[in-house]
C-alpha cells in the first residue's frame, strides 16, 4: 500500500493503482475523454493530465495510466494543469466544434471560441474524435480487430481493413456503444428490433460486467465452464467413478489452471455466438492426437467444457487432461455426445468391476476405471461401428437391456445395474453428484427431456446454502427455476450471461440466486426486441405455457407420468457399502437427526438399507409437492384447470387430457 496525497487529501492505495482510480475513491473528478473502465487506459486525449511531485521533481502526467509506486503528491487543478487542459480543449473544439462531449468539457474550462481555424474542421455533431475507444473495445473486449486506425498524424482515421466493409463484423454494437460522440451507427439489423437503444443499454451492462468482473468471478472468458471442475471437487460434487464419490486426490490434474496454462488458447473470440462478450467456448489449438484415424495430426479441439472434463475424466476414474482432450476431439469427430459417452462408459466400467462384464464379453478390453487405453479404444469402436463399443454406444438404458438378455445375470446383478445405471428417461445424467441434494434429484428426475440440468441446478442452494429446507421450498424452486431457465431456450438465448457473471451489487438484492439485475435485463430485452412489454411474471408464464404443453405432449406419447419421473438409486443415495462408508459420518448423522434411527450396533448394510428406504420415500414426497405446485395431478399429469389458467386449453390438449381423466 502506498500513502499519497491528491489535492491535499490523503489516501492509501494498492501499488499500481492509477491516479485516476485513486482520485475516484476520493470523489475527485478528473476529466477524461478516451477512458472507460472496460478497456485499458489508452492515454490519447491527454485531458486527464495532472501534476505529480515524486519528491524529486514535478512533472505532468496522464492520471489514467500513471501507476502509483511511491508516495507522491498530486495536484489535479494546478494553474498549469488547467491551462494545459484549456489548450487541449481549444484544439479539439477548433477541429470538432459541435461535438457535445467536447463542448461540455470546454465550457468547464471557459473555452468557447478557439483562436485558430483548424484546416480539418468537421462540423458534424457526431464527428469521430479519434479517442480510440472503439478500436480498443473491439480488440480487448471482443478479441476481434475488425476496426483499427489507418494513417498517421492528420490522416489518422478509424477504418475497417483496406477501408472496405469487413463482413467479420457481426454488429455486436460494442464499438457503437462505447463511442462518446455517436460517430458509429448501427445499420441494417435484419432482426429489426423495436427499440435497439434499449437493448444496447442492457446489453452493454452485461458486457461491462463481463469485462470488469468475470475474471475474479468465474473466469468464463479465460476457461469457460472448465472453472467448475475444482469447485465441484472441493464441495464433493465431482462425479468420480460412476458417481460413487464426489472428489478424488488426483482431481488436481483436471483443474482449470492446467487447461488454461498449457492448452486453452487465450484472447480469441469463439465461434459459438459471434459478438458475445463472454466468448466462453474455449479451444485448444495444435494438439497432437495420440490415437485413432488422425493419430499424429495437430488438431483444434472445441472444448473442453466442464461436462467433458468431468464425464470423460473423473467419472471414468481418469485424471489426465490429455485423455479428456483426445476424447473430446474424437467424440466431436464421430458425432457422439461427451456426456453420454462419459456416463455410459462409467456405467460399463462399474459393471466390469462387478463381474457383470468380463474380458470375454468386452472383446478383450479391460473395462476398469482409469483405463485410458480402453477408454479411447471403445470410442474408436463406436466410431467405426464395430466391437463392444457399439453396445456401449447405444446408451445405458439399452445396455441394461442387452446385458440382461445376452449375459447370464442374476437377479441381484440386474437390480444392481438398475441402481447404478445413471440415466433418467433414457438419457444419461450430466456431471453433478446429486446424492445429497433432494432438490437436485428432482431437478434431474423431473426434467422433461431427461437427466439434464438445463431446467434446474439447485445443488448449492439446497445442500450448501440450505436455502430450501422444506418440501414446499424445494417445490417452489422446482417451479421457478425450470420455468425461468427454459425461457432461454424458447428465445434462442444462451443462459450463461444470466448467471455465470453477476453485477457487483447482486449480493445486496433480495434474492441473489435469481440475479434480479439480469432478470430485469432480459425482461427489457424481450420488450425492446418485440415491442411487446412484459414483466418478470409474464416471462415465467411464457415459459410455463410451453412447458405444460410439452408435458402433455410427452403424456400423449405414453410417457409424462410419475412412473417415468423415476431415478436410479445411485443418484439419491449410497448403493454399495463402500459408498456408505465413504460418507459414513454424514449418513449416520442424517439417520439419527432426520429420522430418529438408532444406529447403535447396526451394520453398514442395515444402515444403508434403511437410508435407502427413507430417501426413496422422500423422493416420492418431493414429487407430490412438485406436482401440486405445478398444478398437475398426483400422477404428474397437468390438469385441465391448469391448462385453462394458462390459456393453453387448446383443443388438441383437451382431447388428450379428457381421454385420461
Amino acid at each position, binding site marked *: 500500500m502506498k500513502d499519497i496525497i491528491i489535492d491535499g487529501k490523503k489516501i492509501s492505495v494498492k501499488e499500481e493503482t492509477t491516479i485516476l482510480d485513486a482520485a475516484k475513491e476520493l470523489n475527485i473528478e478528473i476529466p477524461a475523454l478516451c477512458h472507460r473502465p472496460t478497456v485499458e487506459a489508452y492515454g490519447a486525449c491527454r485531458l486527464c493530465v495532472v501534476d505529480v511531485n515524486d519528491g524529486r521533481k514535478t512533472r505532468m502526467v496522464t492520471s489514467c495510466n500513471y501507476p502509483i509506486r511511491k508516495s507522491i503528491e498530486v495536484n489535479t487543478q494546478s494553474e498549469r494543469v488547467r491551462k494545459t487542459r484549456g489548450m487541449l480543449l481549444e484544439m479539439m473544439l477548433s477541429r470538432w466544434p459541435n461535438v457535445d462531449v467536447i463542448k461540455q468539457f470546454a465550457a468547464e474550462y471557459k473555452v468557447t471560441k478557439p483562436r485558430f481555424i483548424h484546416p480539418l474542421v468537421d462540423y458534424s455533431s457526431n464527428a469521430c474524435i479519434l479517442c480510440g475507444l472503439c478500436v480498443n473495445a473491439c480488440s480487448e473486449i471482443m478479441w476481434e480487430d475488425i476496426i483499427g486506425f489507418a494513417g498517421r498524424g492528420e490522416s489518422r482515421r478509424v477504418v475497417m481493413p483496406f477501408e472496405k466493409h469487413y463482413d467479420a463484423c457481426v454488429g455486436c454494437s460494442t464499438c457503437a456503444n462505447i463511442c462518446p460522440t455517436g460517430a458509429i451507427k448501427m445499420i441494417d439489423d435484419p432482426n429489426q428490433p423495436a427499440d435497439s437503444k434499449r437493448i444496447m443499454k442492457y446489453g452493454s451492462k452485461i458486457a461491462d460486467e463481463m469485462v470488469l468482473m468475470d475474471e*475474479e*468471478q*468465474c473466469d468464463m472468458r479465460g476457461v469457460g*465452464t472448465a472453472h*467448475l471442475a*475444482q*469447485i465441484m471437487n*472441493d*464441495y464433493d460434487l465431482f462425479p468420480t467413478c460412476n458417481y460413487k464419490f464426489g472428489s478424488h486426490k488426483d482431481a488436481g490434474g483436471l483443474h482449470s489452471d492446467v487447461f488454461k496454462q498449457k492448452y486453452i488458447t487465450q484472447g480469441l473470440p469463439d465461434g459459438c455466438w459471434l459478438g458475445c462478450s463472454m466468448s466462453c467456448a474455449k479451444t485448444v489449438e495444435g494438439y497432437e492426437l495420440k490415437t485413432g484415424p488422425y493419430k499424429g495430426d495437430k488438431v483444434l479441439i472445441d472444448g473442453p*467444457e*466442464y461436462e467433458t472434463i468431468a464425464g470423460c475424466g473423473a467419472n471414468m476414474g481418469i485424471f489426465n487432461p490429455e485423455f479428456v482432450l483426445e476424447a473430446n476431439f474424437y467424440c466431436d469427430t464421430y458425432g457422439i455426445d461427451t456426456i453420454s459417452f462419459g456416463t455410459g462408459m462409467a456405467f460399463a466400467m462399474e459393471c466390469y468391476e462387478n463381474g457383470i462384464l468380463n474380458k470375454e464379453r468386452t472383446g478383450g478390453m479391460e473395462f476398469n476405471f482409469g483405463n485410458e487405453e480402453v477408454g479411447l479404444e471403445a470410442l474408436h469402436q463406436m466410431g467405426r461401428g464395430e466391437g463392444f463399443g457399439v453396445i456401449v454406444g447405444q446408451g445405458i438404458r439399452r445396455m441394461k437391456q442387452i446385458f440382461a438378455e445376452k449375459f447370464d445375470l442374476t437377479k441381484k446383478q440386474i437390480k444392481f445395474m438398475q441402481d447404478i445405471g445413471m440415466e433418467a428417461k433414457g438419457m444419461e445424467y450430466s456431471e*453433478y453428484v446429486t446424492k445429497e441434494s433432494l432438490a437436485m434429484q428432482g431437478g434431474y428426475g423431473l426434467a422433461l427431456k431427461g437427466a439434464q*440440468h438445463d431446467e434446474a*441446478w439447485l*445443488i*448449492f442452494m439446497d445442500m*450448501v*446454502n*440450505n*436455502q430450501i*429446507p422444506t418440501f414446499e421450498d424445494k417445490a417452489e424452486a422446482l417451479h421457478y427455476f425450470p420455468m425461468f431457465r427454459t425461457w432461454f431456450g424458447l428465445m434462442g438465448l444462451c443462459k*450463461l450471461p444470466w*448467471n*455465470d457473471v*453477476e453485477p457487483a451489487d*447482486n*449480493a*445486496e438484492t433480495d434474492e*441473489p*440466486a435469481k*440475479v434480479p439485475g439480469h432478470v430485469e435485463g432480459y425482461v427489457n430485452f424481450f420488450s425492446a426486441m418485440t415491442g411487446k412489454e412484459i414483466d418478470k411474471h409474464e416471462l415465467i408464464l411464457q415459459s410455463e405455457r410451453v412447458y405444460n404443453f410439452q408435458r402433455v405432449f410427452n403424456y400423449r406419447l405414453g410417457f409424462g407420468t410419475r412412473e417415468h419421473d423415476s431415478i436410479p438409486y445411485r443418484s439419491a443415495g449410497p448403493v454399495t457399502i463402500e459408498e456408505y462408508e465413504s460418507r459414513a459420518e454424514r449418513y449416520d448423522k442424517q439417520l439419527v437427526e432426520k429420522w430418529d434411527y438408532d444406529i447403535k450396533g447396526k451394520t453398514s448394510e442395515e444402515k444403508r438399507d434403511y437410508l435407502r428406504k427413507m430417501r426413496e420415500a422422500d423422493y416420492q414426497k418431493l414429487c407430490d409437492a412438485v406436482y401440486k405446485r405445478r398444478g398437475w395431478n398426483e400422477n404428474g399429469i397437468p390438469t385441465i384447470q391448469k391448462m385453462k389458467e394458462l390459456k393453453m386449453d387448446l383443443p388438441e390438449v383437451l382431447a388428450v387430457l379428457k381421454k385420461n381423466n
Partner: protein
Amino acid sequence: MKTISVNGNSLKWEQNMTINVIIGKMNYTFKMLVVKVNGELIKKTEYDMIIIPAAADVRIIHLISGG
C-alpha cells in the same frame, strides 16, 4: 459448548471468530459468496474484521448456478 449456525449447520464457536475463519473451517473455496450474520450483509472487505458472536446465525450463500 457454545455454537453458531452456518447455513443451518452447527459449528463450534471460538473467540475471535471471523468470516474468513469460518470459511476456512467449512472449506468454502468458492469465490462468489453473499455473507449475512444475523440478517445483516457483511461486505467482502470486512471478512477479516467483524468478530462473530456466539449463537450467531451465519448465512454463507454461494452464488452458483452451474453451466
